[in-house]
């Protein structure tokens, strides 16, 4: 179970650290005024500062028990968390598999795994849908619009 407060804090920390990274990184480009006008790092530096300050404000708002927070103390229940993971984890594995397996094989495997393993669909139907997905991608992108999707390291090893 994740509370609304924890989620607010996590997000504020996330945006805040991005802000710090922006500030630090923009210092390399120089901030302030030079002979060529406003230095390249100035604008990012300012936005970084705004992000950091804003995130700090949101952080404090998240810690203090404000009225809006009290009304929704729980942001994500365990069941919801399981559903989220059920969608996101396979999607992340799918993306991780693309460099190796290529877009076509990876997406076919992904569709098959998501449908067949939790038994949402029968194995033959899941197979058919997986095949149809890969074929549709191939026809639309490789053939109709001439956009080459990654074939993957495995396919390259077999000479495709």
């Amino acid at each position, binding site marked *: 179970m994740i509370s609304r407060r924890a989620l607010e804090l996590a997000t504020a920390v996330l*945006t805040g650290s991005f802000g710090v990274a922006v500030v630090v990184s923009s210092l390399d480009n120089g901030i302030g005024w030079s002979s060529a006008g406003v230095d390249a790092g100035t604008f990012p530096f300012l936005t970084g500062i705004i992000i950091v300050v804003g995130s700090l404000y949101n952080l404090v708002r998240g810690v203090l028990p404000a009225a809006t927070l009290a009304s929704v103390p729980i942001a994500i229940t365990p069941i919801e968390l399981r559903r*989220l993971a059920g969608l996101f984890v396979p999607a992340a594995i799918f993306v991780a598999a693309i460099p190796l397996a290529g877009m076509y094989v990876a997406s076919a495997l992904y569709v098959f795994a998501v449908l067949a393993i*939790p038994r949402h669909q029968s194995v033959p139907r899941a197979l058919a849908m997986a095949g149809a997905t890969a074929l549709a991608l191939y026809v639309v992108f490789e053939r109709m619009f001439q*956009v080459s999707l990654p074939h993957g390291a495995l396919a390259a090893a077999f000479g495709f």
Partner: protein
Amino acid sequence: MDNLAELLHGFTIAVTVPHLALMAVGVLLGILVGVLPGLGAPNGVSLLLPLTFGMQPVSAIILLSSMYWGALFGGSVTSILFNIPGEPSSVATTFDGYPMARDGRPTTALATAFGSAAFGALIGVILITFLASWVAQVALAFGPAEYFAVYFLAFASFVGMGGAAPIKTVVALAIGFAIAAIGIDTVSGSVRLTMGVDELVKGVSFVVAVMGLFGIGELLVAVEEEFHARAVSSKIDWREVFRAVGRLPQHGVALLRSAAIGCWMGITPGGPTAASFMSYGIARRFSRRGRYFGTGEVEGIISPETADHAAGTSALLPMLSLGIPGSATAAVMMGGLMIWGLNPGPMLFVDSKDFVWGLIASMYVGNIVAVALVLLTVPVFAALMRIPFVVIAPLIVIICVVGAYSVSNSYLDVVMMLGFGIVGYLFKKLFYPLAPLVLAIVIGDKAEDAFRQSMLISKGSLGIFFANKLVTCLIVAGIALLLLPLVLQLARLWRKPAPSTDRTTAEEKVII
């Protein structure tokens, strides 16, 4: 009446067989992404974007804008029939649309929604027809300082009127700016904010951000609340369609008020979502039947729908004439314009007349096509909603992955897209607004360039932003909008004993 002559010329471009076919395709694809949860107008349009590179710009924009109209309509269909808003901007339509449909009047609800939506869109297009070229003419005289002031006003109005928590809006905007700055700096040529990743030199495309924020993010929100598509009957009774549309003029005041709210929120980038909520909130306050709102009131459907479409349409006005998009989808379209080699802004009205007036004319025709198609296809798309979500979700993930990859054939983009998905989920969950983030990614560079050019002209003095009446007004208005939430907060503390008389609190409650 130059505008009318130009418009007639535009019609000769828009009303051709290939363009009408493109409109139909665009509208159907739009309804499809509008109906499917997880896919919306912004990422629908960005998905289609790489496929338009080989087209004439005017054909491409007709396709993309038709998709936008279709998505706006599609979102209302699911709101009314399934109580599931397909688009964020049609959330307010569920309040009265679904109860009415559930009470056995789905046709009335749909026809009322489409009729008032078409009216809102029409007012928006008329506004564009008469105002856009005038605004562009004024803007031709703008220097960098004026441009920066207009950008500043646009960003400030998100903070002041966007409806989300002001500081969260500021953070979202600033993150967008920082993302826009990643890569090669156009002024000095130096590489910025790549954090050591060489591939980031090319920058972060807004398409990648949109795919993640709106696609994966919305999918995660949708999967969390596992919806059951308990549809009411989706049969269309054609006689009732005409009767319902015929009854619309009785609600003329609500129609005009909502259209005005919508146009205002579309031009100042408040966006369709804020417009529909604000319009619903105001209608509930001022309608004689306000206390029946939420049980299937006609005006409860008219108000959000009219404002939604008026805002969606008029969001293209500042995009065309100033180069400032009024909504997330308009921002994506503007990104497209730049890719097609057009320069959004006042010069468009001088250099690319065919493009501008072809687009404006197509908006009249496209909305008619959209109303007709959406009425004809309601049963088909309603059937689509009965496909289990577990089947649709992986397909949408694949579409987003392929969409992000095809922007520049980069695997890093896919990984970033997934990262944006998490950010999009968190932001949606915690009411950080996404539209300003996308807007800042698309026009952040331009705003920065305008600022730096003005600084070069003034040799580093901020006085240039108060050098003449126009720029001073814009900057002061921007600052006022930035401070508006603070002032309202103070005012609320001041008269705490009677908070119910404060109209803004009522509106905010609706928005939150």
